[in-house]
């Protein structure tokens, strides 16, 4: 029926207003204001309530149109002279419907050969705030928000350069969400940009709940524990990514942007590392690297040592450990799993609950449950220290996705240690490294610059060298513009 009408619409060369009305049946948020032009011709202003600036629409669009005659409006030149910010003409009913859904106000009449659309958006949005999950001491305190246009403008404010480009896409057959791929022309590798654009545009889905859905659709290792795109809500981090030759993926409706290609070590960097002297930057990064090994290996070592290799425990520690363990009814693996799962539950509770209750829960759990567990003989004192150290170590990792990967990974290590002892740990470590060296992010080796080894890029890995030694962009972005400026800003 709709197709027939469209055909009819083309034949008569007049606009099919009834088709638009039919499309917007049972849509209370769509305002359809009927008017009579020249007191004779029926016409209609259509817009989505809550997406347009009503005052501006009234002043700059509705009033001027009402003062014009139908003959004047039939002339595209006159229509385009309307004093609105952006006026477009739609020649089919489908285009008009899409324009209305995008938040434009559209004027339609069956006596006109086209619809007149004006863009005067005013959607409700939250103010710009510092991201709760990516705190910063010395850096900027703004963050992206859910509105894509605002996020693009934030980037434009920081990079006042016409080389900042955005490739726009619409994803979701039902939701029609806008997605932007941002890059710096001349710095980003265009093969990677086009490759990403192709991958994203091939996504066929009814709707995207979050930007993570895009990530999961395009990554080359969907079954991996490790994140292959770096998610951030921080504009300064996004800009740093662009300047390194990376590409940003932004989506309407989420403050999270994705940076790619990235390497494993990128997830251990924080913006504060670059805001201080290089010695402090290195000093800040070191605990994170130690935390990585602690979080993955410490509980597994406890299980391996207490289950199989007790002879590796120093004699001074062996007696208190034995005394502590003798009270416990559980084998080391159960002991560790009980406490680790409890810690995970506490962490999840603290995240989901309001901040003030979450803090109380954490304190209660750590102090009361931990102490009670030791007194009841369920777990040993040493294990409390180990699990607490592991939990703190995980908090030091700046990226939530990487922290989650390590949290999951450590359970694998614990289980392997409980079955095979230290051989299990070594095998798991081997498998993890094997996986890391096989992975890639947008075709670039994930474990770079360690493997394949790039001495030049090691300057910003486990440590951070002075700025004058970091004057080049990382190899992982495959940029053709390798140098960041002579002396990297230092004379």
């Amino acid at each position, binding site marked *: 029926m709709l197709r027939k009408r469209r055909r009819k619409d083309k034949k008569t060369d007049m606009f099919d207003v009834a088709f638009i009305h039919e499309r917007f049946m049972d849509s209370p948020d769509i305002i359809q204001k009927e008017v009579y032009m020249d007191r004779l011709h029926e016409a209609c202003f259509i817009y989505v309530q809550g997406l347009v600036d009503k005052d501006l629409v009234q002043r700059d669009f509705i009033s001027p149109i009402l003062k014009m005659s139908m003959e004047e409006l039939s002339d595209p030149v006159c229509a385009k002279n309307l004093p609105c910010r952006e006026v477009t003409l739609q020649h089919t009913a489908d285009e008009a419907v899409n324009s209305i859904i995008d938040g434009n106000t559209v004027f339609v009449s069956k006596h006109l050969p086209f619809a007149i659309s004006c863009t005067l958006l005013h959607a409700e949005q939250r103010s710009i705030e510092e991201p709760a999950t990516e705190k910063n001491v010395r850096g900027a305190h703004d963050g992206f928000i859910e509105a894509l246009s605002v996020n693009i403008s934030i980037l434009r404010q920081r990079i006042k350069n016409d080389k900042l480009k955005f490739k726009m896409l619409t994803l979701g057959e039902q939701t029609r969400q806008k997605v932007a791929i941002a890059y710096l022309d001349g710095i980003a590798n265009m093969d990677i940009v086009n490759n990403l654009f192709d991958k994203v545009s091939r996504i066929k889905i009814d709707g995207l709940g979050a930007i993570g859905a895009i990530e999961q659709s395009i990554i080359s290792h969907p079954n991996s524990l490790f994140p292959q795109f770096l998610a951030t809500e921080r504009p300064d981090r996004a800009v740093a990514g662009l300047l390194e030759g990376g590409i940003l993926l932004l989506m309407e409706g989420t403050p999270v942007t994705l940076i790619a290609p990235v390497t494993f070590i990128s997830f251990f960097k924080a913006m504060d590392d670059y805001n201080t002297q290089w010695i402090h930057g290195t000093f800040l990064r070191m605990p994170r690297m130690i935390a990585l090994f602690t979080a993955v290996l410490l509980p597994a070592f406890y299980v391996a040592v207490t289950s*199989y*290799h007790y*002879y*590796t*425990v*120093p*004699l001074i520690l062996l007696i208190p450990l034995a005394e502590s363990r003798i009270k416990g009814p559980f084998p080391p693996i159960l002991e560790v799993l009980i406490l680790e799962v409890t810690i995970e539950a506490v962490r999840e509770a603290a995240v989901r609950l309001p901040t003030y209750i979450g803090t109380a829960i954490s304190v209660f759990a750590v102090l009361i449950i931990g102490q009670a567990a030791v007194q009841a003989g369920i777990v040993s004192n040493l294990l409390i220290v180990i699990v607490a150290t592991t939990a703190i170590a995980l908090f030091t990792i700046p990226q939530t996705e990487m922290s989650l990967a390590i949290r999951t990974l450590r359970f694998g290590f614990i289980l392997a240690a409980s079955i*095979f*002892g*230290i*051989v*299990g*740990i*070594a*095998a798991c*470590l*081997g*498998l993890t*490294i*094997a*996986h890391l*060296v*096989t992975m890639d992010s947008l075709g670039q*080796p994930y*474990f770079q610059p*360690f*493997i*394949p*080894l790039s001495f030049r890029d090691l300057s910003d890995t486990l440590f951070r060298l002075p700025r004058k030694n970091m004057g080049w962009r990382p190899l992982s972005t495959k940029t053709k513009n390798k140098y960041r400026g002579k002396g990297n800003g230092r004379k």
Partner: protein
Amino acid sequence: MAGNNSITSKQMAIFTFITQTGVGIITLPAVLVKDVGHDGWISVLMTGVVAVLVSTFIMILLRRYRDKNIYDINQFLFGRLIGFVLNCLLILYLLLAAIGGLCIFTKFMRITLNPNTPAWVLAPLIILPSIYLVWNGLKPVCRFLYFTLTAYPVIILYMLLIHNDLQISFILPIGEAGLLSLLTSIKTSFFAFIGLELIVFLYPEIVDPKNAFKWHLFASLISLAFFLMVILFTTTLFGPNLLGIQTLPLFNIFRVYNSPIFERVDLYLVGVWFMAIVSSLGAYIFTAYFSLQKVFGLKKSKPLYILYFVMLILLSQIARDINEAFQVLEIVNYTGIGVSIFLVACLSISFFRKKGVKAQCKTRT
């Protein structure tokens, strides 16, 4: 994963170096001391010279055929039928080396760390990284070797820690074993250098074959240096008498140092060397699998891949104890020597039967 087998000459050199040193060095000092006493290092030096010569001949052979591996070369030199039979024998050798490596490593692990775990349970665990890597191709296998390389500085640093315990008098008088014994011991110590022949199977995968010659020789020389260092170290540390009654002298070095905080540092060092052994083993496992695909035209399929590893694990259970595992390794050693001689023979024959060589020269010019 197109191009996932392409590697550089440097990566091939690391591949060769780790294949040679990973397993070979663990038992070499103890085996050699039985043959030549405290002159094991001279034997290794002489074998190293032989290994470098063999490496040179192998590289000359490969250069004559440019982008061909030994399977193609055999077809040129011996015709289709005999070439195919020889190719099958080479694959059998690779499989035998992989099985022998897995066999001995499983027994090592049972002796050192997991005495109560059955070998059939340990074997799959040991090759877990290889199972993952081999499926993904030669490039990931070689990338993993970069990680393995970190084990070497750790071991060298550890050796420096205990250098005060060395007694030079243990290797004196030099050459006491006599020239004849030293010459006959070459066949024993050649086992350590096995791995230098793997390049003949993978040569076409090297993206910069021009550099392959120098890097391959470099790999053999570095292996020689490492073997010399460990042999000299173990001999001057334990002395020939104590060394003679040991099975795993490399792991026994790890037990010498008394750490102020950590008890039993050896456990961690065995863990560190675990990666080197896994990589050495993985190199043979990969080459054997790669060769099966090339010679029999097998496509990449998961059922076949699983079957391949199940077969490896099952066959590695043939040896019931470490002595039988050593017997398997001895067969691998002699077969390895045979393969090396065969490759040198191929070079000689290639001067008379120039079929493939001529064609290559024409296409190049």
